[in-house]
C-alpha cells in the first residue's frame, strides 16, 4: 500500500537537480568527443554525423533533442517524402485554381466563393490512444484544432475516423469507450460540432487502433495567416498553457544519461509520454486567437504540436527571412527543474506561438489578459539567419533553422510488392457459398445489419454534440456532414472521410482510388460539389518493403484519382509503424473530401419518407463484385479476390446529377451504396426515415448479387411524385444508368423485398441498433 503524497514526493521528477552544468555551445566546442545518446533518441549513425557536419562540432544536448525530434519520421516525413511529391506532380494548374494554401502549410485552404475560404485537415493520434485512450484521443482532437487555428481560421467542426480491433475483444472494450469519450470530451467542450467519421472493426487494428481526427475551419479568404517569422525586431510570443514535462518521453533519455546516478535522472526516465488535454484552455485560446487575428496583431503564427517549441521556433524561423533568438528562461513552466532540452521538446498542449510587431505587443497582451491567457515574449526575429537559444546566460542552441525544419534526412526505403498479393488475388470471393432461399436472404439482411461494421453508430455519435454553433445541416447518420457557412446566402460545405482498408489490402492502388471515390460520393449525395481532398495515411512499418509498396501504391492511387476527379489534394498526414511484431495493420489511407453547396436548404437527407409518394431509384451498375466485401467477412471470415472496379468518370457524372437533382428539388433522399451493398443502404434509408418501402427486383437480377454486391459508383435515391420523369430524363440524357427499384410506403412499417420477404422495421431496428450498446454498455 502506498501513500500517494509520499510517493509523489519521492517520484517527483520536478525536484531541481542542483547546479548541473549547462551543455552550452561553448561547452560542446570544448568537448568534441563526448559520447552522446543519439541512438536512444532515434537518430541513426549517419544522421548524427550529418548534424555534426552541419554544425561543425558536436550538437549540444538541446540541439540534439531538437534535431532528434524534428528529424523523426513523424516530423520530417523522411520515409514518405519521396512518395508524397507525387501529389504535387499530379496537381494541375486548373486543380490548383481554388487552392489558397496547399501541402506544406499547416493545413490546406480552399476558396469556396463569396469571399469565404475553408481549411481542413486530418491527423492521426494512434499510438497515444492505445496507451491512454481518453487522453490520447482528446489531445488528438486538440492538436488538429490548433493546426486549423494556425491558418487564421475559426474551427467550425470535427470528424473522427476510428478503427479498432474486433468488436468483441476485451481490449476493444478498454480502448473504444475511452477513445469515444475523449473525442467527445474534448470536442464537445470546445463547442465544435462533430459531423462525421467512421467506426471500423478489424483484427489487424487489435493492438494498433487508429484514431484520426479531422478539423474544418472557416475564414475570409483574405484573412489567411502564415507560419513565418518575418521582420527583424518582431517579437516571438508564446501563449496559452504553461510548459510542463508532458510528452517528452524520448528526450528524458538525455536527462538520465547525462545525470545518471542522481534520482532525478532515473525518475525522469519513467516519465509517461502521455499528455493530458485541457479543452477549456483551448476553447479560450481559440477565442483569443480569433480576436488577435481580427485586430491584425499577428504577423505569423504557429501551433505547438509534436516537438513543441523545437518545431514551432525552427519552422517559424525557417519560413521567415532571417533568424530568431529565444530566451528560454522566459518560458513559463509548470514543472520545476526543467532543462533546455526538456523545455524545447515538451509537448504540453494548448500552446501557440506568434510573431508580433513590437508596437503591437501591448495590444496583444491586452487581448490575452481579457481571455485570461498566459502570454510571454520569449524572443525576437533577427536578421542573423540563425536560430539561437539562450538559457541562464549561455547559448545552448545555435543552428541554421532550415537544417532542423526542412533539411532532414530523406530515405528511399526499399519497396517490394509481396509475392502473396497474387495468392490473395487468386482467392476469389465470388466462389464463396451464397444464401439461396428467400429465408436465407432475409436472414442475411438481418445478420449484416447487426454486424459490427454495418450496425448503427449511434452509441458512438450520440456522445458527440452535433448541434453546437447552430449551423449543422446534416450530421450522423448522413453520408456526409453539411454545415452552413454563411447565414445570409445559405452557402455551406460538406465533408466526408472514408477508407475500406480491406480493398486496399487486396489492391492498394485500386483501394486508395475506391477510398477517394467513396468520400467523393458521400459528399455528392448531400447535394454538395466535391472540391478538395485531404488524407491520413495509416500504415505499418516503413522499414518493411511490402508496407512501403502498399504506401507507394496508395499514394499513387489517391493522387491519380484526385487528378481524374479534378480536385486537388491540399494536405495530409502520414502515420507509419502501426504494427505489432511482424503484423502491420491493413493499409488504411483515409481520404477526406470537402464539398461546397451553394444553398444548404437544398441538402439531400438520407432517410426516406419526407415527401409523399416517393419512388426509389438505383443509379449506377451492379456487378458480381464480392472481393473484400463485408458479406465475405461477416459470413465467411474471408478476405481475398479483387476489389470492386472504380470508374471515376462515372463518379463525376453521379456527382453532377446529384448536384442538379438537389438544386432543382428533384430528390427527397439519397444514400450511397458501400459496405453491405444495396441491402444495407435500403435498411438505413428506411430506419433513418422511419418509413417502410416495397422493393422489386429487376427481372434479370440475381437477388443475392443485386442485394449484397459492393460495386462502386452507385447511389440509391428517392424521388417525390411529380419529379420522377424529370429526374429519369436527366439521367438518361447524361447516360447515367437509373432503374426504378421500388416505392416508399408511408403505411408500411416494413421493408418488403420481393423474393426475400417482409422485414418489419422494428425487427430491423433491433438488429441494427442493438449491437454496439450490447457490446459497450
Amino acid at each position, binding site marked *: 500500500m502506498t501513500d500517494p503524497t509520499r510517493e509523489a514526493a519521492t517520484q517527483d521528477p520536478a525536484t531541481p537537480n542542483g547546479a548541473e552544468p549547462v551543455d552550452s555551445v561553448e561547452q560542446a566546442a570544448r568537448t568534441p568527443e563526448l559520447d552522446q545518446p543519439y541512438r536512444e533518441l532515434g537518430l541513426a549513425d549517419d544522421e548524427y554525423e550529418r548534424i555534426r557536419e552541419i554544425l561543425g562540432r558536436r550538437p549540444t544536448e538541446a540541439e540534439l533533442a531538437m534535431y532528434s525530434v524534428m528529424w523523426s519520421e513523424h516530423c520530417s516525413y523522411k520515409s514518405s517524402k519521396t512518395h508524397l511529391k507525387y501529389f504535387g506532380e499530379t496537381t494541375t494548374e486548373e486543380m490548383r485554381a481554388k487552392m489558397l494554401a496547399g501541402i506544406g502549410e499547416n493545413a490546406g485552404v480552399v476558396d469556396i466563393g463569396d469571399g469565404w475560404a475553408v481549411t481542413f485537415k486530418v491527423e492521426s493520434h494512434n499510438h497515444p490512444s492505445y496507451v491512454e485512450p481518453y487522453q490520447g484521443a482528446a489531445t488528438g482532437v486538440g492538436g488538429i484544432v490548433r493546426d486549423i487555428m494556425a491558418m487564421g481560421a475559426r474551427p467550425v467542426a470535427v470528424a473522427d475516423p476510428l478503427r479498432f480491433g474486433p468488436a468483441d475483444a476485451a481490449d476493444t472494450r478498454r480502448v473504444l469507450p475511452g477513445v469515444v469519450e475523449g473525442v467527445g470530451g474534448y470536442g464537445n*467542450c470546445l463547442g465544435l460540432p462533430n459531423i462525421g467519421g467512421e467506426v471500423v472493426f478489424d483484427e489487424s487494428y487489435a493492438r494498433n487502433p487508429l484514431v484520426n481526427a479531422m478539423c474544418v475551419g472557416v475564414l475570409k479568404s483574405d484573412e489567411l495567416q502564415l507560419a513565418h517569422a518575418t521582420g527583424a525586431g518582431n517579437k516571438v510570443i508564446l501563449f496559452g498553457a504553461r510548459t510542463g514535462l508532458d510528452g517528452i518521453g524520448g528526450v528524458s533519455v538525455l536527462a538520465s544519461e547525462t545525470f545518471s546516478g542522481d534520482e532525478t535522472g532515473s525518475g525522469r526516465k519513467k516519465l509517461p509520454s502521455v499528455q493530458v488535454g485541457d*479543452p477549456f*484552455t483551448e476553447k479560450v485560446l481559440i477565442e483569443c486567437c480569433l480576436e488577435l487575428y481580427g485586430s491584425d496583431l499577428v504577423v505569423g503564427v504557429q501551433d505547438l504540436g509534436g516537438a513543441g517549441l523545437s518545431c514551432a521556433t525552427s519552422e517559424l524561423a525557417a519560413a521567415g527571412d532571417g533568424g530568431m533568438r529565444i530566451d528560454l528562461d522566459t518560458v513559463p513552466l509548470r514543472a520545476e527543474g526543467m532543462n533546455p532540452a526538456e523545455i524545447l521538446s515538451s509537448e504540453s498542449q494548448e500552446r501557440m506561438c506568434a510573431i508580433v510587431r513590437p508596437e503591437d505587443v501591448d495590444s496583444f497582451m491586452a487581448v490575452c489578459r481579457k481571455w485570461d491567457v498566459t502570454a510571454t515574449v520569449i524572443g525576437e526575429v533577427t536578421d542573423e539567419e540563425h536560430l539561437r537559444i539562450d538559457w541562464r546566460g549561455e547559448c545552448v542552441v545555435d543552428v541554421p533553422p532550415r537544417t532542423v525544419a526542412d533539411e532532414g534526412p530523406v530515405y528511399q526505403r526499399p519497396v517490394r510488392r509481396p509475392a502473396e498479393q497474387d495468392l490473395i488475388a487468386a482467392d476469389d470471393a465470388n466462389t464463396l457459398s451464397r444464401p439461396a432461399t428467400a429465408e436465407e436472404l432475409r436472414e442475411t439482411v438481418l445478420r449484416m445489419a447487426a454486424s459490427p461494421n454495418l450496425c448503427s453508430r449511434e452509441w458512438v455519435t450520440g456522445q458527440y454534440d452535433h448541434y453546437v454553433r447552430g449551423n449543422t445541416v446534416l450530421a450522423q447518420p448522413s453520408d456526409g456532414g453539411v454545415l452552413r457557412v454563411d447565414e445570409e446566402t445559405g452557402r455551406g460545405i460538406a465533408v466526408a472521410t472514408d477508407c475500406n482498408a480491406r480493398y486496399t489490402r487486396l489492391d492498394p492502388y485500386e483501394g486508395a482510388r475506391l477510398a477517394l471515390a467513396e468520400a467523393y460520393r458521400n459528399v455528392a449525395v448531400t447535394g454538395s460539389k466535391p472540391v478538395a481532398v485531404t488524407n491520413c495515411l495509416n500504415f505499418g512499418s516503413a522499414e518493411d518493403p511490402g508496407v512501403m509498396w502498399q504506401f507507394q501504391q496508395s499514394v499513387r492511387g489517391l493522387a491519380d484519382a484526385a487528378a481524374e476527379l479534378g480536385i486537388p489534394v491540399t494536405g495530409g498526414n502520414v502515420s507509419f509503424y502501426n504494427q505489432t511484431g511482424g503484423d502491420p495493420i491493413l493499409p488504411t489511407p483515409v481520404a477526406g473530401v470537402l464539398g461546397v453547396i451553394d444553398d444548404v436548404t437544398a441538402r439531400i437527407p438520407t432517410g426516406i419518407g419526407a415527401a409523399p409518394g416517393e419512388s426509389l431509384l438505383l443509379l449506377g451498375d451492379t456487378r458480381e463484385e464480392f472481393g473484400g466485401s463485408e458479406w465475405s467477412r461477416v459470413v465467411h471470415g474471408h478476405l481475398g479476390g479483387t476489389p470492386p472496379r472504380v470508374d471515376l468518370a462515372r463518379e463525376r457524372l453521379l456527382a453532377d446529377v446529384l448536384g442538379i437533382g438537389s438544386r432543382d428539388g428533384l430528390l427527397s433522399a439519397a444514400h450511397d451504396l458501400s459496405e453491405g451493398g444495396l441491402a444495407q443502404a435500403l435498411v438505413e434509408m428506411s430506419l433513418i426515415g422511419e418509413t417502410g418501402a416495397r422493393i422489386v427486383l429487376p427481372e434479370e437480377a440475381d437477388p443475392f448479387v443485386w442485394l449484397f454486391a459492393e460495386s462502386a459508383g452507385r447511389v440509391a435515391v428517392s424521388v417525390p411524385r411529380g419529379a420522377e420523369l424529370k429526374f429519369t430524363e436527366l439521367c438518361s440524357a447524361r447516360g447515367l444508368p437509373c432503374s426504378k427499384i421500388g416505392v416508399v410506403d408511408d403505411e408500411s412499417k416494413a421493408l418488403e423485398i420481393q423474393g426475400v420477404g417482409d422485414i418489419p422495421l422494428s425487427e430491423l431496428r433491433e438488429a441494427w441498433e442493438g449491437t454496439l450498446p450490447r457490446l459497450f454498455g
Partner: protein
Amino acid sequence: MSAAGARIGVITFPGSLDDGDARRAVRRAGASDVALWHGDADLHGVDAVIVPGGFSYGDYLRCGAIAKFAPVMTEVVRAAGQGMPVLGVCNGFQVLCEAGLLPGVLTRNSGLHYVCRDQWLRVDNNTSTWTTRYEPGAELLIPIKHGEGRYVAEDPVLDRLEGDGRVLFRYVDGNPNGSRRDIAGITDERGRVAGLMPHPEHAVDPLTGPTDDGLGMFLSALDTLVAA
C-alpha cells in the same frame, strides 16, 4: 414596448458555447440580442437575461460552480430578485442552481455518458414567463446534449415544485439522464426564472434543428416584455 424594442441579454463566460445560438434564437423571435460579458458587473439595461449552454470554466469542479462567482452573476441575481425574466439553458440551468436562483442540482447522467439526441418533452406548466406560448400537455421535440443533466433535489423540494406547478417540462418517451421525476426544466416561485437541460435555442429552425418547437420559449418571454 415593441418586440424589436425588447432587449434580451445573453451572457458569455469563458467556455460558453451556445451563446451565439441563444442570440440567434432571440433575433429569430423578433427581439434584440445583447452580448453580456462575465467579467462585466453590468446588465446594460436589458429586459431579460439568458444564461447559455456550454462548459463555463471547463465545468471542471462541478458544472456551473465557478461561473456563479462571475461579476455579472451578482447582477443577474439582483435583477432576478426584482422580477427580471431569466432563462438558464443546460450549463445555464446548472449555473442558476449553483447560484441559488433555482433549487436542486444537476448531476452526472445515470448512464455515465454524455448524451446528444432529439428528446421529447411534455409541457407541464404554461403559466411561467417562458412557457405561455405552449398548451399544457403539448409535446415538443428538442435536442439535449449534456453529460450532467440528472436533476436531483430532496423529496420535500420535489414535492413542493410539483405541488406549486413549478415543473415546466418533463422528459417523455424515455428519461435520458435519470432525472428525478423525469424533470427536464423548472421555474422559480414567481415563474420568471426558468432553467432546463434541453436546448430550445437549437430548435428554432428545422434546417439546423429537429423542429422549431423551442421558439415558443423566446416568444413567450417576448410577449411578457411587450405587454409590460
